[in-house]
């Protein structure tokens, strides 16, 4: 029996259309817009002004606190302006807009393809390098990576878990990274192990990617302490708490962080970025994203420069299909619907999904028939039907008591509901309100 997490879960149609498509470099656009807030935490502070010349990899916005991240230029050229433009969240945020001129990289970045296996940096140097390189969680949560590597006093990390689950349907960028950059990922994993002072790492991969499991298992024989753990395909296994439950059978307590059970989780793409930062001096200014959809001509995976407009990656995949009804940044379960294709791709862009019209319109909501399916699929053991009613009735006390804050917003409840009730929409509203009340109480 393959391992998986302890409660709930669903298995949506996988639709990994682009799994066979090798990563290609997306052409550099003429203009990039790089938002100063691409991560969870305080926005970075811009340190360039209009007219400044920048090179590829140059710091253009500085981390403004412990939980914040540096931002680097992804192109060479001149700063055209700093302006508030709409980003993927739909809000207008400050961005540094750079007019591209050539492709000139900072000299200290090692651009060779050669694998550097030997890890020279010390624990402290690694954490500093990861912070300097502006690395954030590339699975989509964009939490600054160096913060997770700084284990709080009194706690010890026992195991590093690499999230290579890619449980979102359609997305294949992590899958391709494992196949094409396997050694780099494993060196990156060892760097992370060194930073955390652990001698064990587990790479969790769902068994719908047998080629990646086989490839990494073969390579891992050359690295100390790295175990490849095949997992049963089950959404939302990529959730941090679910992955810990699946791989080491520990449940992170409600409201606590993974370190509470001795685990630190990093995405496989993050491990690759860490390798590039520490071994190759390359900050995070490009990453891999999947562009996909059933009607798309060429579902594929692209290495893009951060700040490239969404429309460029759609163009590269054969242009927007006629029947497009929804453009989703990320996967179909947790991604964000975009209102425009002019928004820039950022550090958190793991994919772009074009859904046809007939799949996008929600069906009419019916009365709850109390089938209990939402309860049985909830990976956190919550009662979505009840939380929805309480959110609707503004019963915030009961929402808090019934653990609304544990909701990871995976969407399994809404996905499953036969009455098409917008369970997660209401739960989000309730969560927001309860969070406000809890903050006010402090």
């Amino acid at each position, binding site marked *: 029996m393959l391992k998986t997490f*302890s*409660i709930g879960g669903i298995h*949506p*149609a996988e639709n990994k259309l682009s799994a066979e498509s090798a990563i290609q470099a997306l052409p550099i656009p003429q203009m990039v817009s790089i938002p100063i807030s691409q991560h969870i935490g305080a926005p970075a502070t811009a340190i360039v002004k209009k007219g400044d010349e920048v090179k590829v990899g140059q710091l253009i916005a500085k981390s403004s606190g412990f939980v914040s991240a540096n931002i680097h230029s992804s192109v060479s050229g001149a700063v055209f302006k700093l302006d508030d433009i709409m980003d993927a969240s739909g809000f207008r945020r400050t961005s540094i807009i750079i007019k591209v001129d050539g492709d000139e990289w900072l000299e200290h970045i090692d651009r060779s393809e050669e694998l550097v296996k030997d890890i020279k940096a010390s624990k402290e140097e690694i954490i500093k390098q990861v912070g300097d390189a502006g690395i954030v969680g590339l699975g989509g949560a964009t939490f600054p990576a160096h913060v997770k590597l700084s284990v709080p006093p009194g706690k010890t990390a026992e195991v590093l878990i690499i999230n290579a689950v890619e449980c979102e*349907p359609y997305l294949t960028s992590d899958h391709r990274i494992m196949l094409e950059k396997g050694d780099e990922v494993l060196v990156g994993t060892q760097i992370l192990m060194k930073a955390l002072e652990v001698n064990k790492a587990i790479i969790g991969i769902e068994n719908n990617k047998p080629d990646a499991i086989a490839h990494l298992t073969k390579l891992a024989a050359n690295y100390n302490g790295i175990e490849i753990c095949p997992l049963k395909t089950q959404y939302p296994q990529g959730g941090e*708490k679910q992955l810990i439950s699946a791989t080491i059978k520990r*449940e*992170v*307590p*409600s409201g606590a962080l993974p370190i509470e059970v001795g685990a630190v989780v990093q995405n496989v793409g993050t491990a690759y970025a860490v390798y590039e930062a520490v071994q190759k001096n390359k900050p995070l200014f490009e990453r891999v994203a999947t562009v996909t959809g059933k009607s798309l001509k060429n579902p594929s995976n692209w290495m893009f420069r951060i700040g490239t407009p969404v429309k460029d990656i759609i163009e590269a995949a054969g242009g*927007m299909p*006629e029947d*497009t*009804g*929804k*453009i989703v940044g990320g996967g*179909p*379960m*947790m*991604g*964000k*619907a*975009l*209102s*425009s*294709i002019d928004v820039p791709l950022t550090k958190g862009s793991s994919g772009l*999904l074009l*859904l046809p019209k007939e799949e*996008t*319109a*929600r*069906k009419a909501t019916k*009365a*709850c*028939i*109390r*089938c*209990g399916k939402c*309860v*049985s699929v*909830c990976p*956190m*053991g*919550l*009662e979505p*039907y*009840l939380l929805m009613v309480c959110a609707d009735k503004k019963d915030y006390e009961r929402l808090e008591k*019934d*653990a609304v804050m*544990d909701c990871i*917003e995976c*969407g*399994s409840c*809404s*996905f499953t509901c*036969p*009455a*098409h009730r917008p369970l*997660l929409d209401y739960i*989000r509203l309730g969560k927001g309100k309860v969070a406000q009340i809890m903050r006010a109480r402090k």
Partner: protein
Amino acid sequence: MNTKVLVAPSPHVHSGDSIQKNMYGVVFAMLPALLFSFFYFGLGALVVTLTAVASCYLFEFLIQKYILKTEVTINDGSALITGILLAFNVPSNLPIWIIMIGALVAIGIGKMTFGGLGNNVFNPALVGRVFLLISFPVQMTSWPVSKGLTSGYIDVETGATPLAIIKEGLKSGQSLSSLMDKIPSNMDMFLGNMGGSMGEIAGAALVLGLIYMLIRKIITWHIPVAVIGSVAILTGILHMADPEAYAGPVFHILTGGLLLGAIFMATDYVTSPMSNKGMIIYGVGIGVLTVVIRVFGAYPEGVSFAILIMNAFVPLINVYVKPKRFGEKRK
């Protein structure tokens, strides 16, 4: 960009499941039992089923359209289920007008007074059935004897159910072993060759339906297993304590609509608990009450009452029995 795109919160895809798919799935699962009832009771079964289903549709339509003046939702399939279940629970020679009263009570009082599908506390078909049982005790307990496909409708020979034979026999002082000779064999009962209501007689057909519903994930195993398991354990203990006074578990499981109740009535979405733990408590409650009523009560059979009583506890179970939360601190 000239196409308009939709912007809405995640998730952006849906499983494609719907209320209709679940309801018609249940109907499909009832087909084997329905065919069996036609096979054993012929014309009578056909008339009773058609009357019950048509009346349920009609009353739901009339009430929604002219009394409540709300959206008419007869297409969701739930009236069809109520109709078939009501038919399953009555003798195949029940006069049409009595069936229509049953349907009116089931849909009107059992379902619509509470606000329609999703809001009713009690299983509508059982509300209708119990109303009829109390109002028309004679007609509701004269069970036609199976004459196969050629069975007639009103003018048929009737006989007692195995449960009634045992109950009456034990009351008049006969020994259980002598009574056991008067009832059909276990295999006959499993295949439906006994007196009883239309849907309760064919255990084999009901179990086929259960397997189908489990595979399609329309229901989970919790309720049927809890009901049947608790009945088996309880009657097993009683039987071991005094084999001459109490019938064994196999007899109790195959008779009196226990399988019908455990598979199709207790598992009704609306009137059963939401969490797995809650479903097990509810199922065990039904099993225990069924045995208590059958063995110690005045009625020979108790599944309907047991389910209705446990239906009343469902809101309470939902409030106090929470699913196991992820990362819950162990006390």
